[in-house]
């Protein structure tokens, strides 16, 4: 099944500095730097923005502006699993809203929210490009298609079980 996003718990300046220095010689590296920080922590910690600003010499405001312009950047921590519900045109016609409703029934989180047990963050995306498998979602890195309200609940339930109780 889908691999979970590996997330480090506490932001470390050493790790963040490494990421910045890795890209800093390239021009226009702010977005790759922010992407790598987000891959590391699941979101962009406020301390990271300050650090990027300090090392690159770009203002805090400009970095914050870039981070908030693009849909992919998150300034809040992520749940253990990331569910991206596709709302592309084909998925819309195939009932994406009903899939979102079924997800809410299963994990009690609506799009843009993280479930109370922090196991699922649910997001809305414009199109995953798997239109022939509509309605579809992306669970962590893997696309699951041809969903029904019943099958989506099963997929999420299985994901919960795979996580185990020790988490």
């Amino acid at each position, binding site marked *: 099944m889908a691999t979970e996003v590996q997330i480090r718990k506490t932001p470390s300046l050493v790790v963040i500095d490494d990421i910045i220095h890795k890209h800093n010689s390239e021009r226009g590296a702010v*977005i790759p730097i922010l*992407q790598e920080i987000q891959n590391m922590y699941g979101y962009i910690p406020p301390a990271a923005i300050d650090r990027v600003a300090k090392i690159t010499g770009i203002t805090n405001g400009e970095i914050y502006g870039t981070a908030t312009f693009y849909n992919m950047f998150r300034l809040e921590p992520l749940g253990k699993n990331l569910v991206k519900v596709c709302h592309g045109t084909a998925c819309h*016609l195939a*009932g994406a809203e009903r899939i979102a409703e079924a997800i809410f029934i299963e994990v009690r989180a609506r799009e843009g929210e993280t479930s109370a047990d922090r196991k699922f963050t649910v997001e809305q995306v414009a199109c995953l*490009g798997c239109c022939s*498998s509509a309605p579809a979602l*992306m669970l962590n890195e893997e*696309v699951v298609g*041809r969903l029904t309200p019943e099958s989506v609940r099963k997929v999420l339930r299985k994901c919960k079980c795979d996580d185990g109780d020790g988490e």
Partner: protein
Amino acid sequence: MKSGNGNVVIKVGLGSCGVAAGGRGIFDALVTKLGNSNISVQRTGCLGMCYKEPLVEVMLPENRRYVYGDVTLDKLDRIIDEHIINGQPIAEWLLLADGITAEETNPLSGQQRIVLRNCGIIDPESIDDYIGVGGYKALEKALKSMSQEQVIDEIIASGLRGRGGAGFATGIKWRFTREAKGSPKYIICNADEGDPGAFMDRSVLESDPHSVLEGMLIAGYAIGASEGYIYVRAEYPMAVRRLRIAIREAKEKEFIGEKILGSNFSFDIKIREGAGAFVCGEETALIMSIEGKRGMPRSRPPFPAQAGLWGRPTSINNVETFANIAWIINNGAKAYSNYGTEKSKGTKVFALAGKVARGGLVEVPMGMTIRDIVFTVGGGTSSNLTFKAVQMGGPSGGCVPASLADTPVDYDSLTNVGAIMGSGGMLVMDESTCMVDLAKFFLNFTQDESCGKCVPCRIGTKRMLEILERITQGKGREDDVELLEELAVSIKRASLCGLGQTAPNPALTTIKYFRNEYEAHIAEKKCPAKKCQALIIYNVIAEKCNGCRLCQRFCSTGAITGKKKQPHTIDQKKCIRCGLCMNVCKFDSISVD
């Protein structure tokens, strides 16, 4: 990839569609079961028949191929036993078989594959596979026997126009960039496929990444550039991964690097992952994004050919455009321009989706009619309902009603009916689609994705959306349609970039062709397609309901009540009209009015 040594080769489609349908499980099962035999199990990309994924292709010696669709683990056991071991194909599950499939049931009939030539045939993670089908021969030909001008002349003569949407002549763009003053020069591959409903770029990158790299290399040589960027959507992790593998392998084989193939041409290719902004498909916004800024467009001129990335001459071309280049260099401009119409040459890949029977990627000569694409290639609607319209070109495009289905698909004919070619998304709709809801859907998308820089787009799309929302809620006013039209014209005229200039198209075309639906929502407070939640009501048909309680478990507001094995009822005050109950009911006992 060929089974020349007399062995059987089995290929499993592992593009995103194949994986989404469970292809990886099939692949793993095949490896486990056949790993110790002399049968080779291989991964391949997308054959385009996404509606039948997971696909398994059995290739016997002499290259006879048999393609099975909708393969499950159970079916796989039988395919292995009967076909692979005992040599008896299972006719009823075959989707396609050389020499057996009749023309009318052949999913590839009517298609002409240039861009998709290797998709679903080679292993996208193997450069040797690509070289095995003639890959990088065009680069060699260009570097060793053609001048830079000759390459550009060839592309101009082919008539190739940009496949990203606007349809500007590719060769002319290259010439402008070549002749522009300033250095270094850059090539950018626009792989920020943001149109919801279009997925050809994803599929090409996942299935045949080297063809795009080769196109970029040839462009780089022709223009005199030394560096290229691929700006690819972050929502496409598999495409990004395969591109990285392809670039690494191309560097190892010295197709990318210093003094390529012994020439004086050096070129490097880098990947930049997009960060999720539709507007970055616009070339000046894309450049801003690569430069690390907010992706906001600027006015043109100067065009990127004069002042692009870091202010240097830059040619930006789309994935599909690049995937055509090597074929044109190998086969000549004339062979390419034999396909298509007078002003739209070659082939075009369409992403057929929505209510179509054979959804997936199809590549057809330009000029084929919408009817032929939907019915001959796509197999008609997937439901029993009547074909109503197609939406061409995503949120920037327009809908073309069934009455205009004989419109040939080329740049100019589509513009004449109010739609655009766009990137090639072709969404098929049947009678169950509400056209007002569709317009609202697209406006919701464009107003959300508007970068906010210019007023007509930022505020205009918002106002249009508000009007569409009130119409779908049954609160439409008498002159709302006229107001929408007036706003639409102003937004189109005054917006800074393509996003705003095209955003009103879905509303304008649905008004033009389906005005009666708008009027039904406004005057009668009715949604003819029974889609708009505020105008419909769900009820339980007591005679059909056997009280299984499934719908109760799927009702998030507790609106459905009733004892087990007794007909249920819906409390209309609590019902949010999500329609889940109707979706899950196995006895058709929920009605909508």
